[in-house]
């Protein structure tokens, strides 16, 4: 296999707060290959966005701190690079889109001047070149009359159009890697369908890799090849989407899939996961899912299960998969 574009190995990020230490992600490992689309799912607070920010080296420090592990991009350790290089990587190689485009786009500049500025700084284009490229990008993401809209401000676009503008900005510098953090969560379902289709076609067209973060299992089922499931700061399972949906190996993944109401069958009662997610400042010892897990055993309350490969490409962290001891 060729070298993965992104390799996250044993990464932990913690926030040293007055109230105590909060481990937002704890010893997580996964890789994303060239052209691969990886969906990171999990409930709110599980650590998905912190993972994204850690990849971009955007964890505020203090209070944040990389406690363990490494992040490698195209083979190079992002945390061993000088600031100048990481800025170049952020400008040219890794792009990011968010749930709320208003946070990424500046309201006081026109869309054209923002994207144009980024192109001039990152790609060394002239003013004229940058403007032409911006119009081309707006056209590509399906903004009608891009020649006029390039001079509009962000608030002059609807929610779905703003998401397109952000995508145009993210893609303008030809990134090889796109991180999308809940890009469709705030959108209506019909607009979500359009944006998903757009992201998918852009990934193919530009041969990018994708890290897609969402709490919506329906979205990853269609937008991603591989899926990672997070629970309370751990990645508990990774596999192809076919494996995750048809053959889940971690009780949390199983519970999550069972809780979703379905569009094709009606049932009187759903099968929820009991209880609530643990307090991240005082997680339970052992497997963090143990208070909610119907399979929990003594060892689950004592030892954190090892994250291991059960079949090629399918990983899970659960004591149910421990070798039986003789």
């Amino acid at each position, binding site marked *: 296999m060729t070298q993965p574009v992104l390799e996250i190995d044993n990464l932990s990020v913690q926030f040293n707060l007055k109230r105590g230490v909060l481990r937002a992600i704890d010893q997580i490992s996964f890789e994303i290959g060239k052209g691969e689309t990886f969906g990171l799912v999990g*409930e*709110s607070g599980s650590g998905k966005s912190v993972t994204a920010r850690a990849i971009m080296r955007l964890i505020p420090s203090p209070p944040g701190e990389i406690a363990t592990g490494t992040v490698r991009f195209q083979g190079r350790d992002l945390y061993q690079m000088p600031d100048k290089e990481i800025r170049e990587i952020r400008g040219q190689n890794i792009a990011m889109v968010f749930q709320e485009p208003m946070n990424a786009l500046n309201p006081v500049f026109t869309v054209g001047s923002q994207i144009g500025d980024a192109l001039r700084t990152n790609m060394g284009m002239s003013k004229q070149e940058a403007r032409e490229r911006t119009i081309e990008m707006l056209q590509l993401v399906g903004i009608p009359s891009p020649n006029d809209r390039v001079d509009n401000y962000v608030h002059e676009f*609807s929610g*779905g*159009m703003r998401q397109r503008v952000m995508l145009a900005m993210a893609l303008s510098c030809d990134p090889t890697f796109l991180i999308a953090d809940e890009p469709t969560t705030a959108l*209506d*379902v*019909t*607009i*979500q*369908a*359009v944006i*998903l*289709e757009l992201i998918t076609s852009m990934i193919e067209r530009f041969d990018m890799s994708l890290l897609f973060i969402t*709490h*919506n*299992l*329906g*979205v990853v*089922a*269609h*937008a991603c090849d591989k899926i990672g499931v997070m629970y309370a700061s751990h990645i508990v399972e990774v596999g192809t*989407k*076919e494996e995750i*949906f048809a053959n889940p190996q971690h009780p949390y993944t199983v*519970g*999550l*899939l*069972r*809780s*979703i*109401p*379905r*569009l*094709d069958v*009606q*049932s*009187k*009662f*759903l*099968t*929820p*996961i*009991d209880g*609530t*997610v643990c307090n991240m400042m005082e997680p339970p010892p052992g497997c963090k899912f143990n208070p909610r897990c119907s399979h929990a055993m003594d060892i689950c309350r004592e030892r954190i299960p090892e994250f291991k490969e059960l079949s090629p490409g399918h990983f899970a962290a659960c004591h149910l998969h421990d070798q039986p001891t003789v």
Partner: protein
Amino acid sequence: MSEYLLEVKNLVKYFTLNGDFVSRVAGKTQTVKAVDGIDFYIRPGETLGLVGESGCGKSTTGRLITRLIEPTDGEIKLHGEDLLAFPPKRMRETRKNVQLVFQDPYASLNPRKTIMDILSRPLEVHNLATTWYEKRERVLELLNLVGMGSEHIDRYPHEFSGGQRQRIAIARSLTVNPELLIGDEPVSALDVSIQAQILNLLRELQEKFSLTYLFIAHDLAVIRHISDRVAVMYVGKIVETGPVTTIFNDPQHPYTKALLAAVPEADPKKPPPRLILKGEIATPIDPPPGCRLQGRCPIATSICGEVEPKLETVDTDHQVACHHL
């Protein structure tokens, strides 16, 4: 006595936008046709799911029925009696019967009051319990009903998770023994594993107390799960209404079809989501004549831009508003 617990006829709510200074001086105002002549009914003990995308008028409909806002036109009948004609005293009594649960329970629970205070307040207002002991008993009973232990009674809202707060909000709505519960996106802010808990709770309570639900949501899978019948709204209008299996297995209106096709199902073997409509959601501000979907509909013809389609009955309980069925 009416067959329906709630019946809504030609319900209309317009809001006037004054716009900026220039248009005000010019005497120009804009009308937001938030709810524009809708009809529906709910039978006792059933759940009507009201579904549609943001801004289509779902929440306004819920607020109109509780009379948190007054309609521009139309009728709202409870057990066949015109709610809008009730004198204030009768209306106060009736308010008890119709309770609203919101998406964000935190915003609707006073952060400075304990759960005991929050849940005993409606008991006091409606004279349902007088002594401290009676109130405490009833509050404990309510907590138990929504699956919360008695140890929570003296705690404050911020000490609870989103799912627990929603349980408290549901308990509060039950203090006054309502007949009709209107849920305005009551599970939308919750993570799926918790959402399933609350949906099950709502189902149990419905059976226990023969409650009638108007369940408002934008999530089609949630609507499919909870509803007996469904009404689909688009820009202030109900475009299709019918039994839940009809709406999901055999939708007739182009908008219902488009909405269903756009849902990404949590199953990679299902077809990917796609949008079969052109463009984006129309605005309810001064909409053009004819069908609200005309600019986006793949089968529109000239009549769609001229004549507004009315809801026509196509089968028992199944009504569709479209010129080209």
